[in-house]
């Protein structure tokens, strides 16, 4: 498995180089650059602009610019955000924890609900409970997340006032106090629930169908012939098989941890990576856009790898070597 992992990582390197070229070219092709965003073109002399361009290296051949960018990245320098006036790494560092907190919490809800509802529906198919869960799932598929988000804000934040409607932290709380974490949780719980409860639909439906399919397998009949109780048959024999595809989903979900909440973060004006990405795109803050795009791509590759590794862990028939 170690050699497999190393080999997979080795394969990832050329893919990442290719990716970085694509990202760089796309950013170059878009109108404007960091300089034109930073200065007021009507108020600056053309001499100043060309001097700055020369200084920033915009007159160099494209491949030199690309190599310089790559070199900087490899040295941990992702450039500066001209909107936020700080290094990109610092800016993203502030946001990354917010997003991770939100998406992990959402993922937790997704899987908890999927397991509770999927296992129930799979064990009792075509009953009232199963039909109710199916109805919920259709809602989950059909409702756009912005609509569900706005509804949730209206109901729980504005009407009931249980939680704040936006942001990630209250004003005037000191970092690392209990009040700080409570405030964080209060700000995050609603977007996380909306995100989790919507995306749980697919997992629930999948788990239900897989359990029903597994329950017809010959090995289940064998277990019954051994005198194994129904609860152990479902919770052990069937679940252990049905968990295999779900666990590989988890790998992909880990890959999507940073980029999975773009819409939700925007609706809840939650200061995470997703909303930062959208803001930077509209403001042409390219060094931020490029860095986030690279991050998301790398995360996706890592998520794929994790999915494959998990698959090898939970399914004894798969040998990774």
């Amino acid at each position, binding site marked *: 498995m170690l050699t497999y992992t190393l080999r997979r990582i080795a394969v990832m390197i050329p893919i990442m180089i290719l990716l970085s070229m694509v990202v760089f070219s796309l950013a170059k092709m878009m109108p404007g650059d960091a300089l034109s965003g930073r200065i007021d073109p009507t108020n600056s002399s053309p001499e100043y602009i060309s001097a700055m361009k020369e200084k920033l290296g915009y007159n160099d051949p494209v491949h030199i610019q690309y190599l310089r960018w790559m070199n900087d990245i490899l040295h941990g320098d992702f450039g500066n955000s001209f909107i936020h006036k700080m290094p990109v790494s610092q800016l993203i560092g502030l946001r990354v924890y917010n997003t991770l907190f939100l998406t992990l919490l959402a993922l937790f809800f997704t899987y908890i609900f999927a397991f509770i509802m999927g296992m129930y529906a799979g064990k009792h198919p075509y009953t009232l409970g199963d039909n109710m869960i199916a109805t919920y799932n259709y809602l989950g598929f059909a409702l756009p997340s912005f609509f569900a988000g706005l509804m949730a804000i209206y109901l729980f934040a504005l009407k009931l006032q249980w939680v704040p409607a936006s942001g990630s932290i209250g004003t005037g709380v000191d970092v690392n106090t209990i009040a700080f974490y409570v405030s964080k949780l209060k700000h995050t719980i609603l977007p996380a629930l909306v995100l989790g409860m919507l995306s749980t639909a697919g997992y629930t439906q999948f788990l239900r169908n897989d359990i029903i399919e597994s329950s*017809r*397998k*010959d*090995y289940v*009949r*064998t*277990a*019954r*012939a*051994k*005198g*194994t*109780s*129904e609860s152990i048959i479902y919770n052990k*024999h069937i679940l*252990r*098989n049905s968990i*295999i595809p779900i666990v590989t989903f988890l790998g992909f979900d880990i890959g999507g941890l940073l980029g999975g909440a773009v819409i939700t973060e925007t609706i809840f004006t939650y200061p995470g990576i997703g909303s930062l990405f959208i803001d930077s795109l509209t403001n042409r803050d390219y060094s931020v856009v490029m860095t986030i795009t690279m991050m998301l791509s790398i995360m996706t590759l890592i998520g794929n790898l994790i999915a494959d590794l998990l698959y090898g862990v*939970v*399914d*004894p*028939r798969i040998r990774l070597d």
Partner: protein
Amino acid sequence: MAGREFFNTETSILNTKNLQAGFFIGGKFYPAIEDINIEIKPGKVVCVVGESGSGKSVTALSIMSLLPKENGSIQEGEILFEGRNLVDLSQDDMNEIRGKDIGMIFQEPMTSLNPVFTIGFQVQEVLLNHLSISKSEARERSIQLLRQVGISRPEEIVDEYPHQLSGGMRQRVMIAMAIANNPKLLIADEPTTALDVTIQAQILELIKEIQKKMNMAVMLITHDLGVVAEMADEIIVMYAGQIVEQSDTYSIFYNPKHPYLKLLLQSIPRLDENRERLDSIKGIVPSLTNIDRTGCRFTDRCPEAKDECRQISPQLAELGGGHKVRCLLYKESYPTEKAVTNR
């Protein structure tokens, strides 16, 4: 004679009475087996033969209460196991019997083991289900059992997964699980059908050997009469859900009565013949929804059919010496008044 009958029922392990089971298809119930009376005495081997679709597996699954929950059901009759009617038992009560008093081996060794658990786990489970022993004791016994069914390197095999074993090995594991708790009855549903010819003989030999050693009663299901000759005490021939002939092994082979059995016997390939004689009986067993339930069910394929075979449903009747047949070539098989009104 009456005294002997009484004695027999007292000592039989299994006794099914007028068993009828089948499936709901499109809201309608179709019996897959009807009027099944099978008696098995301790230490005896009863073989059930018949072509694919004749109801052999349904009979076995009914006894184990393992018919598919969605559409399978036992509609009539009793299954007396040591005097208890299994039809009345809850699944929890059946769990006490399954794997302990009755062990079962299935037709499909490739899919009958759970792919994600080790062989050891799966053998231990049947022990732990019924005995209060520790996990390590169960592991020890699993290794012994695997050795007993002829698996070499059992200490390593316990930690392997089903996909690492061949079909024959998997069937040996299934046998180990089925006999783990010294059952009084072993039901083997075509245990060799899915295996290579050489492996088939080994597996049958193994079942025979274990049966002798443990003095178990065995219900061996097969569609190949050839394989059962040396181990069966009694043979039951099924066709389209009914028993059509039933007798001791000798009479079945040397004094067959039913045209279907005669054809079955002819289709057994013989070693001393050069000619390919595997030509099976023309036609097929009617499917569940297509069985014509008036008249003899074999009429369309029967070389000796008479006109009245289409109208009169033959009864399973005793010809003497425990030899029973269901065919209008024998006057005993004509329905009695009572049976006619019952139909």
